[in-house]
């Protein structure tokens, strides 16, 4: 892509990358560990099948635009069939002793661990994210999530929802493309642990890992119909959400779609949880551990190319250290390695789709047009695929679009503040409320600022940390309900 070449001032970086004496040779992870079939069906009632109307769509690798596979595209009739299968499976699944459901989930967790390298490569291919992340973050978290909820299946009486909490029934789940398998785990693990059955629709740009997961369910001997996977577009998601046989809707994705879903289920009895967008503030005070704060800022906005709902996309830095932090940040950005997602040394991979790239590009251009100062390190982007260089906007104010709208890309907006009160006020001055970060060595400041932030997750002196035991979810327009931890059970229980 071309738009990133603008406004690049070669910084006096510590790291002259091209031509550096110690240039890392390519270190590609072997693609041969994963065998992608030329076509995949829908996974309904334990079998793969074509869509009722025979429609298919192609899924491409965003780093090369190579077609990876052709996938059946679910429509309304398929949704109906899948929901019926899930309904049929519900009776016996929910009647199983919790300890037996637990063992199925433990099996799934173990198979995910066993096949984790294969799944990591697959995810990097289909999503565009670096293998370093799929290998070291996504897949370990996926397995851990199944392990964690496996353990709850026979302990629900201890979870604080009454002596014998009941499942809801059929869960309709729609997940995004940014963490395809991890979001699947966040949805399916608690649903099955509590005795629900599921129909899950992965995103249209990243259907493959969910289809591999269907195979894992078969390897684990999971009864037919307990998990159904319907690759498809928004229309399939809408049909699923609206289906009268669905008792529970769980959605992760954009705030706009989340609002639409809330309207769809209004007036009915479906239980709803939504995990939506964010515009997380990462607040750096003048007494922060600066080197670690810089790492946290980088991790906060460039993890998964910034395509993270809880990204720290607004850096709020105390004016007294702003120059120091920004210099360090730019120096650090110059060492980021952008390129082939399968190279083990890649820090920043491809943007997931042409559409997403266009959105990031448009918002970044708006930032420039509104007068914010744009900076990117010198970096060569591959010619094929969807790419966007790591980008900083300085001189941003609360009024700029890049400070208000979720960009969902590797673009950081930098604002300054003078006092803790001002930091809190600016951090909360958004319709979103998913995440925030606080960087200071002073413990009481961490706790008082955290108390005042209207955000569902507050990281202090760290960022983008996830754990199956830790509840995750938003305030305000970032959605409602929590995933993870004991709290995550509630969304799938009749309480």
């Amino acid at each position: 892509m071309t738009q990133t070449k603008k406004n690049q001032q070669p910084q006096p970086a510590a790291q002259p990358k091209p031509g550096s004496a110690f240039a890392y040779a390519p270190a590609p992870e072997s693609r041969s560990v994963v065998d992608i079939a030329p076509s995949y069906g829908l996974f309904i009632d334990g079998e793969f099948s074509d869509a009722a109307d025979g429609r298919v769509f192609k899924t491409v690798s965003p780093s090369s635009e190579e077609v990876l596979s052709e996938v059946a595209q679910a429509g309304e009739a398929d949704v109906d069939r899948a929901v019926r299968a899930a309904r049929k499976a519900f009776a016996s699944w929910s009647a199983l002793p919790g300890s037996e459901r637990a063992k199925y989930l433990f099996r799934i967790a173990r198979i995910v661990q066993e096949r984790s390298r294969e799944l990591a490569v697959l995810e990097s291919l289909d999503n565009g994210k670096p293998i370093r992340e799929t290998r070291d973050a996504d897949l370990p978290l996926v397995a851990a999530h199944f392990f964690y909820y496996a353990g709850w299946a026979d302990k629900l009486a201890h979870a604080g929802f009454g002596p014998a909490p009941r499942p809801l029934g059929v869960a309709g789940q729609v997940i995004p493309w940014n963490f395809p398998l991890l979001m699947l785990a966040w949805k399916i693990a608690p649903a099955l642990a509590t005795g629900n059955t599921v129909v899950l629709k992965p995103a249209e740009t990243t259907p493959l890992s969910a289809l591999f997961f269907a195979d894992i369910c078969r390897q684990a001997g999971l009864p037919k119909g307990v998990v159904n996977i319907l690759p498809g577009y928004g229309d399939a998601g809408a049909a699923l959400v609206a289906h009268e046989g669905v008792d529970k809707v769980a959605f992760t994705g954009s705030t706009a779609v989340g609002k639409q879903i809330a309207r769809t289920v209004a007036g009915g009895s479906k239980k709803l949880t939504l995990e939506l967008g964010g515009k997380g503030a990462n607040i750096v005070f003048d007494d922060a551990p600066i080197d670690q704060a810089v790492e946290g800022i980088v991790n906060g906005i460039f993890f998964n190319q910034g395509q993270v709902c809880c990204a720290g996309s607004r850096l709020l830095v105390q004016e007294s250290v702003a120059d120091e932090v920004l210099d360090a940040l730019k120096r650090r950005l110059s060492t980021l390695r952008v390129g082939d997602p399968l190279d083990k040394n890649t820090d920043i991979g491809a943007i997931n789709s042409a559409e997403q790239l266009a959105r990031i590009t448009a918002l970044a251009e708006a930032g420039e047009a509104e007068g914010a100062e744009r900076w990117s390190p010198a970096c060569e982007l591959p010619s094929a695929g969807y790419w966007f260089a790591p980008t900083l906007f300085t001189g941003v104010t609360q009024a700029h679009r890049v400070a208000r709208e979720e960009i969902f890309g590797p673009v950081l907006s930098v604002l300054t503040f003078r006092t803790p009160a001002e930091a809190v006020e600016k951090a909360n001055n958004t319709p979103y409320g998913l995440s925030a970060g606080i960087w200071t060595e002073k413990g009481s400041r961490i706790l008082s600022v955290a108390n005042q932030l209207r955000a569902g997750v507050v990281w202090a002196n760290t960022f983008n940390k996830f754990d199956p035991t830790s509840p995750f979810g938003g305030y305000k327009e970032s959605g409602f309900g929590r995933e993870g931890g004991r709290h995550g059970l509630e969304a799938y229980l009749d309480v």
Partner: protein
Amino acid sequence: MPTTVPAHGPDAAARLASMADVTASDAALRRFLHGLPGVDAVGLEARAASLGTRSIKTTAKAYAIDLAISMIDLTTLEGADTPGKVRALSAKGVNPDPTDRTTPRVAAICVYPDMVATAKEALGDSGVHVASVATAFPAGRAALPVKLADTADAVAAGADEVDMVIDRGAFLAGRYLKVFEEIKAVREACRRPDGSSAHLKVIFENGELATYDNIRRASWLGMLAGADFIKTSTGKVAVNATPANTLLMLEAVRDFRAATGVQVGVKPAGGIRTSKDAIKFLVLVNETVGDEWLSNEWFRFGASSLLNDLLMQRQKLSTGRYSGPDYVTVD
């Protein structure tokens, strides 16, 4: 940013003089050191671990192995050291792999002061330096005149480099100026009659300083006092060089150069035994301070068994077969 001068060059003293206000008194020095940004241990270790996952293959690996060999201070610091042992080690340092003359020489042979003359004679004009530990290494528990005599003795015997230990007791007791003055005095003792000086490496013994905040403070203190190199460890305690404490010291030399223009080297020592470990440290250098530190003028490994592992890896790269300990020399 001021222009850069090497810590071991003639212009460094003037730059350090510009920082004289912070070392003017114990109180000033304490205020300055305690005013340095804190270190979050979890974050520091996570960053070091993350850089440890870099995958260095093929041409990059070959480059890194030769670079690492050239950075080794090949060390013997045993009570059982003899002239024979030191001569054998010196021969190995000059010619690490007798079957492959393209193998680079090590940077220095590191010995106790009484072995300096032997090493100097054995190394001749090979270009391999003689480094001597001094100042009552490794504990450093001796009176200052003893430490200075120890240093002067090593320099007089021909040491090109002196590896001193700081007084950890004084440091942990908060007597920073005492530590500072002692380093300065040792630096003076490194001076030769012709006015030149042996390069001074200052060992903090990170394992005894115990906290990362202390290591950062010691780094600045050492550099302010005129260290040419800052060095992690003696190799004689439980915790020696780690990726995290070396990363922290690399950040310190980077920040010190940005503040003063004086460039100081870094030497991790102790516990680095495999090529894989050594390459991880080079990655830390590459991604923290970059090219300008990627030579043996600015980065060293204090090691003994590391060399043979590097040689075996080097043989693997050139032959395609894994090598074994019978195919490298034992000294």
